């Protein structure tokens, strides 16, 4: 259905599975890659071909540009989809793919370089007539420069990785006393995540909402905005819940943000799918934050509201097709909410967890969609992002979407390791969240809850009985992992 025939998916987990699905829908062959930690992974089994590219450590596998390009060429691919994370915003990868004569499913390297440098992106936004939060227009030379800048814009300030994105290398600094420690940690994280410790800083906008606008652009000068997502429910600058429409966003504000995003995209010569992130203050002031030059984790929220397949659109415009619609053709209907189920112990303060999926039940029914790569017996690797699954719900209005989200969480079981599900169950009943009254401070202010989940009469008795039984059973063996089937077989033969 597109000019593309065979795609290398340079990623893993739920997003690799998500991309494989659209490859099938478009009649393209999907080639998976996997590290030694992912031998049994679902994306390997659902792909048409799969190649081992190295040990678990990302640098030696999912971040190894040469290996990925080599596999794409060897397996006869004509395109490469980077997913999100890993190399998705790495301009060198985009150029290497292009240099190998393959189609990169994302914006060109030049655009990635331009927007990947957060300070340059800020300047570009300002030139496009979009307000930016007061801060430094260049990366900070050193701690001293940071002190000066912080004093100028005034505390509290936000330290950010200059090459950053995705919340890594970010620290809130409320007083001058905290600056040095935060500087150390943030630049350390930035170096680890992006290869450069460079930081810049902005004034911290308290009580602001994190609202982002989804864009799609083709090679023929068409740029269309598809709708916003409110991603203010975050912890450690990592998103937990995203929804569209934003509870605080009316048609006028939506159009303003959409228009601003398109202006920035046009000025940057943007191509393919992308997201422009904004901070929206209590009085509706809109500040540019950054551009994510890739598919977002939360893209299904926009898919449910618009009925579009964003990954399919990525492939079409990457293949040179024109967008099949104009701005006025985009239909938005109802409300969608995404809940990120992560391998983090929510009651324990979102401490990353690991383990084996001992029991899995995913929700279904009206308005419920789940994106995941889980299966019973799966060992959750500690080397990668803790995202386990995305529960995405749609309803004709926000109240219906909320009710369906509660129902979906109630049906979901992920046993064997701690997860973020308890947070979602709690938040979906939180009066402020239900009323749409929340900003980026929500999680800190509402979690952990004052009192643990309550059980009434028979539930409490039942739980007590099961607690006794559970202490008596041995850990049930989970069949899984690399089989030594042939060796077993041979040994048995010898005995016969």
């Amino acid at each position: 259905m597109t000019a593309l025939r065979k795609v290398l998916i340079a990623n893993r987990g739920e997003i690799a599975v998500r991309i494989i699905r659209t490859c099938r829908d478009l009649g393209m062959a999907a080639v998976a890659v996997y590290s030694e930690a992912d031998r049994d992974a679902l994306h390997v089994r659902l792909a048409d071909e799969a190649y081992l590219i190295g040990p678990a450590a990302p640098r030696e596998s999912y971040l190894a540009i040469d290996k990925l390009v080599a596999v794409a060429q060897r397996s006869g691919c004509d395109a490469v989809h980077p997913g999100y994370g890993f190399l998705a915003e790495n301009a060198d990868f985009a150029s290497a793919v292009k240099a190998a004569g393959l189609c990169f499913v994302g914006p060109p390297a030049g655009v990635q370089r331009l927007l990947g440098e957060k300070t340059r992106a800020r300047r570009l936004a300002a030139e496009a007539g979009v307000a930016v939060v007061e801060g430094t227009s260049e990366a900070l030379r050193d701690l001293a420069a940071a002190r000066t800048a912080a004093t100028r814009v005034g505390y509290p300030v936000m330290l950010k990785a200059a090459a950053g994105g995705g919340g890594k290398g970010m620290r809130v600094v409320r007083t001058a006393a905290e600056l040095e420690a935060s500087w150390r940690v943030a630049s350390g994280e930035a170096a680890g995540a992006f290869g450069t410790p460079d930081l810049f800083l902005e004034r911290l906008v308290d009580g602001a909402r994190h609202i982002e606008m989804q864009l799609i652009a083709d090679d023929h000068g068409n740029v269309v905005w598809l709708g916003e997502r409110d991603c203010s429910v975050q912890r450690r600058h990592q998103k937990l819940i995203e929804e569209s429409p934003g509870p605080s966003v009316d048609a006028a504000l939506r159009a303003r943000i959409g228009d601003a995003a398109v202006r920035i995209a046009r000025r940057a010569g943007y191509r393919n799918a992308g997201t422009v992130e904004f901070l929206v203050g209590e009085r509706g002031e809109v500040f540019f934050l950054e551009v994510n030059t890739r598919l977002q984790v939360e893209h299904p929220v926009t898919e449910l509201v618009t009925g579009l397949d964003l990954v399919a659109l990525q492939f079409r415009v990457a293949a040179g097709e024109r967008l099949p619609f104009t701005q006025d053709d985009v239909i938005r209907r109802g409300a969608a909410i995404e809940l990120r189920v992560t391998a983090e112990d929510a009651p324990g303060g979102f401490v990353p967890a690991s383990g084996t999926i001992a029991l899995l039940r995913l929700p279904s029914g009206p308005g419920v969609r789940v994106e995941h790569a889980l299966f019973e017996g799966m060992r959750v690797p500690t080397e990668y992002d803790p995202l386990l699954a995305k529960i995405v719900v749609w309803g004709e209005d926000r109240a219906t979407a909320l009710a369906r989200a509660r129902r979906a969480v109630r049906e979901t079981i992920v046993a064997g390791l701690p997860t973020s599900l308890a947070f979602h169950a709690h938040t979906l009943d939180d009066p402020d969240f239900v009323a749409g009254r929340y900003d980026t401070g929500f999680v800190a202010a509402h979690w952990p809850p004052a009192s643990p989940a309550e059980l009434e009469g028979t539930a409490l008795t039942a739980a007590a009985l099961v607690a006794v039984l559970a202490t008596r059973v041995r850990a049930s063996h989970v069949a899984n992992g690399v089989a030594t089937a042939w060796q077993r077989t041979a040994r048995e033969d010898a005995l016969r």
Partner: protein
Amino acid sequence: MRYEVRVADHALGVEIDTGGRALVDGEAVAAQLDEIVRGRQWQVVLEGRTHEITLLTREPMRLLVDGREVDASAVDERALAASRGTRQHASGRHELRAPMPGLLRAVHVKEGDIVERDAPLCTLEAMKMENELRAPVRARVVRLDARVGMKVEGGAVLAVLSEVE
């Protein structure tokens, strides 16, 4: 056999008599109890109310009861009797364990230090995030096994603290 059971904030006594009958806080309960997944999931029907209970994690025990996560524990009276002694003996002693496998990026204390409650003891990197492990109480670091750059398993003891007033 009697068990001291804790579910969320509640303490209950569960007794199982030789006839296989269960009593909760002395009251016999007539529950229809089905094991749906061996050692992992049960269905309990009690007074018509139906409860689906899943063992989420074993250590520490966390149960999912009709979609609600609760911490729980059950200790039989003999184990209890046995453990009391050690508890006494161990009172005020705290082991700092790695919550998950990872790489020790930083150690902020040395043996003999007195640390305040919530003071960062070391930084463990796992899943691309840095996690500060903090002191549960004001205490002295009586033993320190953590070394920077060390790759540790989940549950590994990183330090032993002795509570100080």
